[in-house]
């Protein structure tokens, strides 16, 4: 009975996911397999091209580095926010969320002004005589990573603050009394207890960075393509919708399998979650 009523309650949601997410996906996927030269022909052709492999590698690298940087920055920031008085805490949370209210295009243009050849960063570094000629940061992978970190840091912080607020401060004090200095305390006591928040944050950031379009388009320029900009190029510039679909499917496969891997890894790190699941 219970499962029955559950099914009917979920039915509308099930139908809308089917119509709005699953069918379009199938529609994209099916034509990619319908080629005269065999089932996987378009895929093998795409993956044989070294330039395409390069784009996949770059996309993966950018997403991974972004996730790591966001994680390393996010943990101390969320620890700091979670331990403020509630009034200051809500102000800080609003400040963190504030950039997310602006359009992504606008935010990325801000980085053009900062990172450009005659941008704020280069002018500043040159005025300090740290560099003699301006650095080429804009339209490189570094620029995409900087833009993505800025874009995704709030998401990581929001995912972590929940886990951090649940920490028992007395456990850290107990570890300190037992001889753990602050650094060991962070590594051995605090971070292991944040695994679920870290996992959520990493999945959101990784999937977001993997599939982001605006940031690599604006900060990466035309030469530094990632998978999403490559899809756009194939579909809109070259009109090759089938190829665009192939890349889209590969992108989905990579990001989904990365998420499954992350889940697995976090389960081995945090054996408690076995009994939760």
């Amino acid at each position, binding site marked *: 009975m219970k499962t029955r009523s559950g099914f009917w309650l979920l039915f509308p949601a099930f139908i809308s996911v089917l119509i709005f997410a699953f069918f379009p996906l199938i529609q994209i996927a099916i034509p990619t397999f319908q080629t005269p030269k065999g089932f996987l022909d378009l895929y093998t052709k795409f993956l044989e091209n070294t330039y395409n492999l390069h784009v996949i590698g770059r996309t993966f690298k950018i997403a991974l580095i972004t996730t790591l940087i966001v994680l390393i920055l996010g943990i101390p920031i969320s620890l700091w926010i979670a331990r403020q008085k509630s009034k200051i805490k809500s102000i800080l949370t609003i400040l963190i969320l504030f950039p997310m209210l602006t359009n992504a295009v606008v935010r990325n243009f801000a980085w053009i002004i900062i990172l450009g050849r005659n941008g704020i960063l280069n002018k500043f570094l040159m005025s300090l005589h740290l560099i003699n000629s301006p650095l080429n940061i804009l339209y490189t992978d570094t620029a995409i990573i900087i833009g993505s970190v800025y874009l995704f840091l709030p998401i990581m912080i929001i995912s972590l603050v929940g886990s951090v607020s649940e920490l*028992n401060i*007395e*456990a850290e*004090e*107990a*570890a*300190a*009394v*037992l*001889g*753990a*200095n602050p650094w*060991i305390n962070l590594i*051995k*006591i605090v971070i*292991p*207890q944040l*695994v679920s928040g870290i996992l959520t944050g990493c999945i959101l950031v990784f999937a977001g960075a993997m599939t982001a379009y605006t940031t690599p388009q604006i900060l990466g320029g035309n030469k530094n393509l990632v998978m999403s900009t490559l899809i756009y190029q194939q579909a809109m510039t070259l009109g090759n919708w089938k190829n665009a679909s192939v890349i889209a499917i590969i992108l989905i496969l990579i990001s989904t399998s990365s998420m499954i891997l992350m889940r697995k890894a976090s389960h081995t790190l*945090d*054996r*408690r979650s076995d*009994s939760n699941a």
Partner: protein
Amino acid sequence: MANLEVKDLAKSYNGKTKILKDISFSVKNGDLVSILGPSGCGKTTTLRIIAGLIPATEGKVLVDNKDVGKVPVYKRNFGMVFQSYALFPHMTVFNNVAFGLKMKKLSKNDIQKRVNKILKITGLSELASRYPKELSGGQQQRVSLARALVINPQLLLMDEPLSNLDAKLRIKMRSEIRELQQKLKMTVLFVTHDQRECFAISDKVLIMKDGRIDQYDTPENIFHHPSSEYVAKFIGYDNFINVDEIINDHQIKSNANIFLTDENNVDAKVLTIRPENILINPQEDPSNNLIGGTITSLEYLGQSFKYKVSTSLGIFTVEEARKPMRSSGDKVQLYLPSKHLHPLSR
């Protein structure tokens, strides 16, 4: 194990209200000393300053005559048991207990031996591979005790370790703690708000009020000679007589004939008398220290009866073993023997 000495400790936040003032006491090697007081009296703050978790505003903490004020918490080698137990949720019982030894960088073999030994003493051997959330409250409490003991701390600090347990378990655990403390000859500082708990197991009791020490003595001395009305109330005295003036050398100015002995006639503002020391309708009629009253409520205590008697000097609580039980509304004469009237400072 070590001697502990606390000198002129004071604590204030933002330089404003002082939450601790003039805290000075010492704990002898191998003694169990309780800090007793209601919540908010500063007892936990005192403990946390000694542990090194928060800095003192003034004063010193000496362990074996060495000032530990500048020693960070993780180098003090104390054991601490927290009210919430504060177990590490992501570690097994074994790893929780082993944590302190790992911090000391002992060999795996030594860690294994010492953890197994303390798990045996605390009766946790079977649970070594469980996680904290799979344990009952009493078991968690024992893990946190084992974790504090395994490092052979110089000093064991306990912050209301029994307050989250049910009444039965609390009594069992407190005698286990006392037994273990005497077996291992530990110096223990035990914070509690439960008077029975601390009188049962302490060598000395330190009673705190509003951030000050009110009385520091053996449980027996505190019980028989409470220093103030506050202490007396806290340890279960119920009857207080205000003394406005002494007349005729030994008599309290009131509408009853209450006289003091030479001994307790010491210019006190308040007198107290234990419920079992008041006699109802005494056999031989004493000429004075009698006061008339009416029984307003009664309670059956098993061995005896407890009456509330309303008199012109206020309500008195009286315990009497005599049967049958008296009934509410009875007019009675209360005899307050002079020698049982304890003078108190306010």
